């Protein structure tokens, strides 16, 4: 395996203003504040007590499987933070340090964590291999959160969140409302041209059943996915709208900060209330769906707002006979990539398969698939970090490339926006003879419009 040597820069990814001194003190202060106010303390306490060090997780981690470096074993990754927790925040650790003179956290630990926690793609596959059910992905999440509080966070993630929370556009790609409206008008014309029917992208409709949030990059990059979705929703007579107050489903808070995670989810909720909508509809994106599904109930202080993923809704409409897909349009061999944020919780596994099998004859599964599918290699926000691209391809992405190649498919369906970017790069980097598409890109081709 050829992974380039670490860049000369102390940090493996670009950071705006890294703290260069007293990092240890700052880290402990941030760790302490997070333990005080969040829910991590009790679980760290449990994990330090029951981590059995059996190394079963090693065979579940595609990164370790490729790099072969024992530092990439999930249990080891977690043990860095657990050791610091035990030494500095538990009675047993304090007593042990007095008895053995064991030193506490060092600068070296921080260097190790800032690299390690951004090499883990937080895909959470390893949890399925742990007899104790330790969530190593949660430790990665927490490690990144603490690091972010001392200024260590990849700039790529930080600038996106800054634009989303503080910028004029309120979205990660900085698309202003007029540009959004132009794009949607263009998409409407495009559908009319290719399908011969006018399909609307409703904007700021009050009282709609669904308020729609796509990962905003879809408006720049995934025209077919959006057109496919609009065709489905209009054909089935669904009342839906895009809100101009907030139209971005991306939530990088999930990848490095509980603070921003909450704020971004609250902004989604506010937009639904402003429009008097009833439900949140999230596009094909994996992490956008998971953050809304799992965290809207946490941060919503008003009446309940159900969260629906687009694939769930499309399947429901298909089963109710409200949309019809032509089974003769797609003739290529097709496979499907399960995004981690859909499948690890068992939420969206069968829905896309039922849709696919209803109109695609030549469908092959990749192995493994479903709950156990391999991460695209760019999970946990790492796909946005260009500085780690070499690692993303050669370490995290290599197994994915092998898995894709083995299917012999012409098309890989990739719902999640992060996976879409990573798999596109994997296909190019490893020269795979296939193209990647969203599920609604294919639905756009096959849907019979009324």
């Amino acid at each position, binding site marked *: 395996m050829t992974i380039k040597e670490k860049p000369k820069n102390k940090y493996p990814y670009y950071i705006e203003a890294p703290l260069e001194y007293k990092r240890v003190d700052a880290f402990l202060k941030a760790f302490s504040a997070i333990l005080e106010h969040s*829910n991590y303390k009790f679980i760290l306490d449990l994990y330090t007590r029951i981590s059995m060090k059996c190394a079963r997780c090693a065979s579940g981690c595609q990164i370790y499987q490729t790099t072969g470096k024992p530092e990439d074993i999930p249990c080891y990754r977690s043990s860095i933070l657990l050791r610091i927790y035990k030494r500095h925040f538990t009675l047993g650790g304090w007593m042990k340090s007095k008895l053995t003179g064991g030193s506490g956290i060092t600068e070296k630990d921080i260097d190790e964590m800032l690299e390690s926690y951004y090499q883990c793609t937080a895909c959470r596959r390893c949890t399925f291999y742990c007899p104790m*059910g330790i969530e190593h992905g949660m430790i990665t999440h927490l490690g990144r959160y603490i690091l972010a509080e001392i200024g260590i966070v990849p700039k790529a993630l930080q600038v996106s969140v800054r634009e989303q929370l503080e910028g004029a556009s309120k979205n990660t790609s900085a698309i202003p409302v007029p540009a959004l409206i132009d794009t949607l008008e263009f998409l409407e014309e495009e559908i009319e041209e290719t399908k011969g029917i006018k399909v609307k992208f409703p904007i700021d409709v009050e009282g709609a059943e669904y308020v729609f949030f796509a990962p905003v990059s879809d408006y720049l990059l995934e025209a077919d996915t959006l057109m496919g979705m609009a065709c489905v929703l209009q054909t089935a007579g669904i009342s839906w709208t895009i809100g101009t107050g907030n139209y971005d489903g991306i939530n990088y808070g999930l990848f490095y900060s509980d603070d921003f995670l909450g704020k971004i989810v609250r902004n989604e909720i506010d937009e639904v209330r402003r429009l008097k909508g009833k439900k949140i509809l999230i596009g094909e994106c994996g992490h956008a769906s998971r953050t809304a599904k799992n965290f809207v109930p946490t941060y919503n202080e008003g009446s309940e707002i159900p969260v629906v993923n687009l694939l769930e809704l499309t399947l429901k409409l298909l089963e109710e006979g409200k949309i019809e897909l032509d089974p003769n349009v797609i003739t290529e061999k097709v496979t499907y990539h399960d995004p981690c944020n859909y499948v690890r919780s068992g939420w969206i596994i069968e829905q896309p398969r039922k849709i696919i099998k209803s109109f695609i004859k030549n469908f092959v599964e990749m192995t493994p698939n479903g709950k156990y599918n391999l991460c695209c290699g760019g999970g946990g926000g790492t796909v946005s970090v260009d500085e780690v691209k070499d690692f993303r391809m050669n370490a995290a992405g290599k197994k994915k490339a092998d898995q894709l190649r083995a299917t012999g498919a012409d098309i890989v369906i990739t719902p999640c926006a992060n996976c879409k970017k990573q798999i596109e790069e994997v296909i190019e980097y490893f020269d795979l003879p296939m193209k990647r598409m969203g599920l609604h890109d294919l639905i756009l081709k096959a849907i019979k419009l009324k």
Partner: protein
Amino acid sequence: MEQFLEFAKGSLFAGSFVIMVLGLARTAFITLWGTKNALDKAGDKNIPYKALIKETFEWMIPIKHITNSRSAISIVSVVFHIGLIIVPLFLLDHILLWQKLGLSWPGIPAAIANVLTITTIVTGGILLLNRIFHRDTRFLSSVIDYALLVLILAIFINGFIASKPFNPIPYNLVMVIHVMAGNLILILVPFSKLAHCFLYPIMRIASNIAWHFPARAGEEVNKTLYGEENKKV
């Protein structure tokens, strides 16, 4: 020696048992209190208990999961645990000890106990070799991970050979080692990773609860660190 053996089987055993019970009570309190607090603080209190309990049972008898990774060593580990749980509790000689503490239940026939003891010694030995020679496991292991396994093996081996005709060591000496090591294990249960025998049932539920964040945690952390609820990104 005989007197000391009686002392080890009597007062020391009772004392070790009490330390274990108190230690586990402390662990139980910390864990349940922590879990309850986390649930109280969580912004979303919907926990899929049914699915988590199902998963917990599935992993307890891990037929479904055993082959998903390192199958051979996983099967060895499961077999190891069977004897490890049954023999200390149900061997007829051990029941006499439990009776001293006022506890009583039926025992298992000596033949079955013998078989289980042998399987535990053999599988425990394999686990120890695995820890020493398997690169991943060795990388993760620290002294205590080896020590606990050695201690358990010592208890089983001594207990097994004590009354056998081929035992070359004086009976009382073997028994003293057996009982003292057993007492030490009891004391270590709440304070080492052996606590997993007690904490296992709550692990998956606790992990799930930990993903349920308190709604204002981010703001509270900001207040503590920066003096105000909102910070610049």
